């Protein structure tokens, strides 16, 4: 089918066999690519009960149909797997250049299965695919290795690597690429480490077949023009995601000291203009991006280069751990990248440990000598290193994630372990933001913001309102935003530049030659959403409503200061939101899709006996 390469690359790490197979036409039709293809493959190929770190789990690496094309933002891909952090469904989206290169090499997805006995890296040069010895690279930092492989193989190769955290099976290890892009969440780097795969290097020289080249080119160029003429284009491109910092601070959404507050007294020091002025070297776009949010930085204070910090890192390794020097946050960011840790989960774990320390539950000896007060940059750096290397009791404990750590430490610390489904919450305080709270409760990987960024809707509609329309907004966003991960493109042209959603269906038709409407695309996204839900149902024993519980902090304890001081969302209000949500989704009161819903979405045959 046009827009696709028509081939899937299967790499069996246990026996070293490498094969290609046709991408099933009906799968392209019903699930498209990216996270849709990944979810389909996860359902069909990874059995229930598979150990996330064992040979039965697989890592699916999938561009989408728009990846690598002229359409704006065509630089995204998805890593899909069973999560070692949560035990359930995980996918992590990554920008950069790799997705396009995989398409040019001729693959709709790369399946890593089994476990290699020795460290290897996957070498792909069009049709030449090899597993190569990586024992001499084991232990190297992410970008040190990327630089080395570029030197050895050539600049044209696109490289994805894991750092020591992935090797050491830290449960939230990330995959790094292009000197600053990550597939961050859910432990996709951990799975790569468990499979003994240190890196993936890809070069492709082919093109992407397009059904109607003239129309596709014209529509894509119109979309570019719309982005470039958008009102918010200049500010967004100048500051990237960091532009959100001041808005969050002023609206009580900036996570501060482990989400005790949504506003930070030193936040002005980490606002976007300070960042841009003091450390940014260049704008750095993912493939085919008219409006690059990526900012490549150099900290003179620490003598390091890093892409970022992005907003999420600014929140989680800045205000949430009490750091207020942008160069210190850049250093923490760089350490996480090089060592291969997800900055969001790392920040969440460290903030939790700092709160334990300040409350006297952890002492300095348990903290391996670190003085874990909020705002201590050196302690933050030290703990990042210890987590990545699993050094000391606390480093090893936090490497398991905050849910596990709190269960181990107890003494009430579960109350400030800020996660959903075992995934640390990303950087939006939800004491008083009922849609955003629901978005975190129901996101299909755990507490991640990218499925439904509903917090602006909360501010506009009344942040403590509990109503069906607020649940409806979350569902609407959960269909549109992850659709971009299915298509293999970036959502931010729509989110930040207001690029019209009317582009997507005509562009997909011109690309593939297949008639498709916006409603069709949304239904595919809803199908994928329900399939990922069924993966949780099948794979996690006892999965149900309690897995959608919010972090206690937001429903039991008021915000300590700032614009939302004294506010929280009563637990029954959160449950009411969940009732509205389940009802509108066609799920039962335990959060399981009903047989009628699965039938409506064309999933009944696939999920079969696993439906309620």
């Amino acid at each position, binding site marked *: 089918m046009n827009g696709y390469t028509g081939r899937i690359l299967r790499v069996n790490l246990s026996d070293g066999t490498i094969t290609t197979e046709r991408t099933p036409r009906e799968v392209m039709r019903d699930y498209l690519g990216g996270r849709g293809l990944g979810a389909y493959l996860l359902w069909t190929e990874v059995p229930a009960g598979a150990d996330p770190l064992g040979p039965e789990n697989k890592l699916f690496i999938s561009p989408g149909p728009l990846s690598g094309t*002229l359409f704006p933002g065509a630089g995204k891909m998805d890593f899909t797997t069973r999560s070692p952090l949560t035990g359930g469904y995980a996918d992590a989206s990554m920008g950069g250049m790799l997705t*396009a290169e995989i398409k*040019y090499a001729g693959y709709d997805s790369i399946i890593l299965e089994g476990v290699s006995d020795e460290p290897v890296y996957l070498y792909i040069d069009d049709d030449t695919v090899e597993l190569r010895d990586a024992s001499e690279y084991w232990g190297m930092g992410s970008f040190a290795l990327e630089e080395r492989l570029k030197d050895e193989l050539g600049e044209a190769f696109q490289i994805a690597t894991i750092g020591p955290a992935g090797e050491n099976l830290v449960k939230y290890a990330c995959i790094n690429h292009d000197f600053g892009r990550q597939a961050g969440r859910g432990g996709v780097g951990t799975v790569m480490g468990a499979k003994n795969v240190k890196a993936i290097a890809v070069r492709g020289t082919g093109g992407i077949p397009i059904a109607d080249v003239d129309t596709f080119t014209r529509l894509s*160029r119109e979309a570019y023009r719309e982005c470039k003429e958008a009102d918010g284009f200049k500010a967004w491109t100048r500051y990237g995601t960091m532009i959100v910092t001041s808005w969050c601070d002023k609206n009580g959404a900036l996570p501060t000291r482990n989400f005790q507050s949504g506003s930070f007294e030193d936040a002005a020091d980490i606002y976007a203009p300070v960042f841009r002025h003091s450390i940014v070297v260049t704008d750095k776009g993912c*493939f085919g991006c008219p409006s690059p949010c990526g900012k490549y930085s*150099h900290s003179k204070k620490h003598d390091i280069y890093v892409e970022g910090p992005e907003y999420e890192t600014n929140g989680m390794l800045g205000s949430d751990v009490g750091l207020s020097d942008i160069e210190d946050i850049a250093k923490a960011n760089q350490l996480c990248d090089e060592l291969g840790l997800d900055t969001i989960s790392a920040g969440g774990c460290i903030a939790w440990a700092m709160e334990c320390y300040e409350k006297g539950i952890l002492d300095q000896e348990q903290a391996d000598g670190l003085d874990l007060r909020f705002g201590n940059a050196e302690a933050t750096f030290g703990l990042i290193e210890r987590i990545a290397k699993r050094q000391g009791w606390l480093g090893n404990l936090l490497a398991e994630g905050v849910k596990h750590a709190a269960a181990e430490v107890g003494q009430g610390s579960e109350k400030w372990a800020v996660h959903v489904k075992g995934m640390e919450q990303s950087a939006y305080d939800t004491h008083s933001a009922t849609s955003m709270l629901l978005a975190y409760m129901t996101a299909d990987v755990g507490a991640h913001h990218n499925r439904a960024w509903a917090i602006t809707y909360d501010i506009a509609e009344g942040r403590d309102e509990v109503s069906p329309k607020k649940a409806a907004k979350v569902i609407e966003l959960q269909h549109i935003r992850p659709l971009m991960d299915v298509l293999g493109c970036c959502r931010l042209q729509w989110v930040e530049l207001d690029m019209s959603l009317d582009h997507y269906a005509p562009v997909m038709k011109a690309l593939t030659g297949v008639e498709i409407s916006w409603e069709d695309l949304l239904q595919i996204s809803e199908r994928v959403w329900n399939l990922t839900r069924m993966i949780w149902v099948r794979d996690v024993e006892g999965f149900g409503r309690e897995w959608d519980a919010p972090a206690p902090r937001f429903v039991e304890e008021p915000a300590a200061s700032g614009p939302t001081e004294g506010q929280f969302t009563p637990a029954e209000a959160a449950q009411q939101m969940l009732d509205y949500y389940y009802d509108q989704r066609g799920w039962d009161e335990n959060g399981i899709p009903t047989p009628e819903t699965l039938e409506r979405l064309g999933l009944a045959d696939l999920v079969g006996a696993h439906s309620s």
Partner: protein
Amino acid sequence: MRLYADNAKCSGCRACLVACSLHLFGENNPKKAALSIVPHFPAPGTFEVKVCTQCGQCADVCPVDAIHQNDEGAYYVDPDECTLCMLCVDECPEGVVYSRPDVDYVWECDACGDCVDVCGPDALWLAD
């Protein structure tokens, strides 16, 4: 008329390369573009854009006069006349005359401007 580039504005996204390959070959394949981007990472963190300056040395060295100027004054290679002798590729001071094994002629920038249209940061422009 020729293409100019400001390295400091380039974000390295490569949309220009795709627009170029669609113009020259009707293909979505940035490996068949007539300009290139060289990233310098991790340090110093800059992009270097290599574009044709229309200096004409390619035409001067071509032994079969396969390189002509279009109405805008930009040089282009006539695919039917090119013998793949590669003298122009070696001669080009910017390294922006391109070839690859599956194309039986070399190609270069004809200053069409399609790359300019899709460059978000306005790092590319056409001028005399």
